[in-house]
């Protein structure tokens, strides 16, 4: 597949460039995400047909369905979509900045960092769900900052970032283990459930902060996407093209850490979505560049589809979504390692 770029121009001299294939992929992924969402809303102890789900969503369902859809299941699905989108976009940013598919938040230990924050709140303070989320957010941000500071030497990039991330990840994992051994059995059970990553019991209180954050960060990231595309050609080339490389990189790193940490705070460390979504998106669009929008849509689709699968196959409440993404993502990571090794990049 060669370039499918089309330019759209107005007589006033404005012009937009559109990769037709990438655009189609984004549209199809949006449709897939919405379809999976409707299916997910219809799934549970009281199955609701898709037609009724849609009717209820536009406000024309009966009272019973309205309660189940709007109060119980819709927020859960929205959290799933937002978490998946944040992880997909965050992962795409990290992979593009590090120029390495392994430079994902999962590998860099941001998930573990958020977990450490959450465990601290659960084990040491027996905090509420809201406090746990704040703890996870802080843990993720501190870890992101630590990685950035440790890996900073004339710009963060490449294997340096990955290696520092793996080191940080190992340390934080040890801390998490220690926290778990210190906890009593009730807290430990709660901690382990949180650590698996789950959408169970998510309500509107989780939706709003996530939606607010995405409303700010996603446009901010997309405005800087052109600079990021150029930065894939190396720092020197992008400087020469007039990009303030350090500034764009810092801004996008902060955005990526915020997206990943807040997603983790809302749903626990759902594993491997940030690693796989950008790679799968890229294989569909076949376009060079960070493929930010496609990764975002792919993340949302993956997470909601994985949640639907876990409920469908094993019944609600039995299998947290993190297990499904973990199994699928683990297989994918192995495949990635093998192909990268064959290509001589590891």
């Amino acid at each position, binding site marked *: 597949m060669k370039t499918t770029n089309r330019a759209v121009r107005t007589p006033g001299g404005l*012009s937009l460039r559109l990769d037709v294939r990438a655009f189609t992929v984004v549209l199809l992924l949006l449709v897939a995400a919405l379809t999976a969402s409707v299916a997910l809303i219809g799934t549970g102890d009281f199955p609701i047909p898709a037609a009724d789900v849609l009717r209820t969503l536009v406000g024309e369902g009966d009272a019973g369905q309205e309660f189940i859809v709007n109060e119980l299941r819709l927020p859960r699905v929205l959290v799933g979509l937002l978490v998946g989108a944040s992880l997909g976009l965050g992962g795409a940013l990290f992979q593009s900045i590090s120029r390495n598919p392994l430079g994902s938040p999962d590998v860099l230990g941001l998930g573990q960092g958020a977990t450490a924050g959450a465990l601290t709140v659960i084990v040491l303070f027996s905090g509420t769900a809201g406090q746990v989320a704040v703890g996870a957010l802080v843990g993720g941000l501190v870890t992101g900052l630590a990685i950035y500071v440790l890996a900073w030497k004339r710009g963060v990039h490449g294997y340096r970032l990955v290696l520092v991330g793996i080191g940080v990840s190992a340390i934080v994992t040890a801390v998490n283990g220690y926290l778990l051994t210190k906890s009593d059995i009730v807290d430990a059970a709660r901690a382990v459930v949180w650590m698996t990553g789950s959408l169970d019991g998510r309500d509107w209180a989780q939706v709003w902060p996530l939606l607010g954050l995405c409303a700010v960060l996603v446009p901010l990231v997309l405005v800087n996407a052109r600079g990021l595309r150029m930065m894939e050609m190396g720092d020197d080339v992008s400087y020469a*093209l007039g990009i*303030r490389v350090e500034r764009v990189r810092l801004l996008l790193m902060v955005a990526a850490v915020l997206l990943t940490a807040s997603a983790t705070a809302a749903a626990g460390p759902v594993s491997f979505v940030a690693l796989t979504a950008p790679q799968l998106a890229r294989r569909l669009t076949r376009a060079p560049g960070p493929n930010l929008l496609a990764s975002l849509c792919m993340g949302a689709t993956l997470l909601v589809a994985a949640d639907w699968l876990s409920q469908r196959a094993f019944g609600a409440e039995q299998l947290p979504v993190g297990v499904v993404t973990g199994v699928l993502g683990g297989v994918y990571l192995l495949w990635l390692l093998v192909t990268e090794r064959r290509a001589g990049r590891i």
Partner: protein
Amino acid sequence: MNRLSAESVTLAYDQRVIAEQLSVEIPDNSFTVIVGPNACGKSTLLRALSRMLKPSTGRVLLDGQVIQSMPAKKVARTLGLLPQSSIAPDGITVGDLVGRGRYPHQGILRQWSTEDERVVQESMRQTGVAELADRYVDELSGGQRQRVWIAMALAQQTPLLLLDEPTTFLDIQHQIDVLDLCAELHEEQGRTLVAVLHDLNHAARYATHLIALREGRIVAEGAPKDIVTAELVEEVFGLRCQVIDDPETGTPLVVPAARKARAGAATGAGEVAATEVS
């Protein structure tokens, strides 16, 4: 006053000082070539001239303004750079890569004008890669790839173009190809070119203005015919040689002295540092 110059700059990486109090003028409309032994600071100087490296003292001026204080995109419309290290993103086509050179002329609402299209075609034609437009960059040979990167720098349409060792890793035919292209850009389009070259004979043949650097200082500068002598080569590179007229062009041609003739002479001024700064 020339468009690009460095005024008593001190150039250093962290604590390692490469050049002190160095002043350089790039003559307008020249094809300036910087030569010197490894680690003499020639690439470092080029990095400073292209604002990749901020001088610890002194300043680099572009059109009379301190280059660091100018808007990044404005500099990028005036001064282009072909660096040594560049990465072709996975799965990018030649046309797409060359098109990226238009970035400084674009904006969020002006992403791909007819002018962009025209310049990209023109740049690919000049560098002879037009027929490769739909090929993937990773499929190309080294010589083709270098031409593609040059095409990208050309698409930037800058009156000043800096090239950091554009012929390294190319075989002799492709080296000459690239240098011919540079000469064309200089002669036919009036662009000011600054290149770092390793090969003194190439430099003497193609440059209109030669700058010989050693240990961060300018030893000599001027037209190759006027400055390239056996004494200069010995002083700068520590190599005994004869300088004769190039039978093709009449420019100076450096012929190193035979090994046995050099064996008597103790290694002179030209001890080359073990580490190379590039």
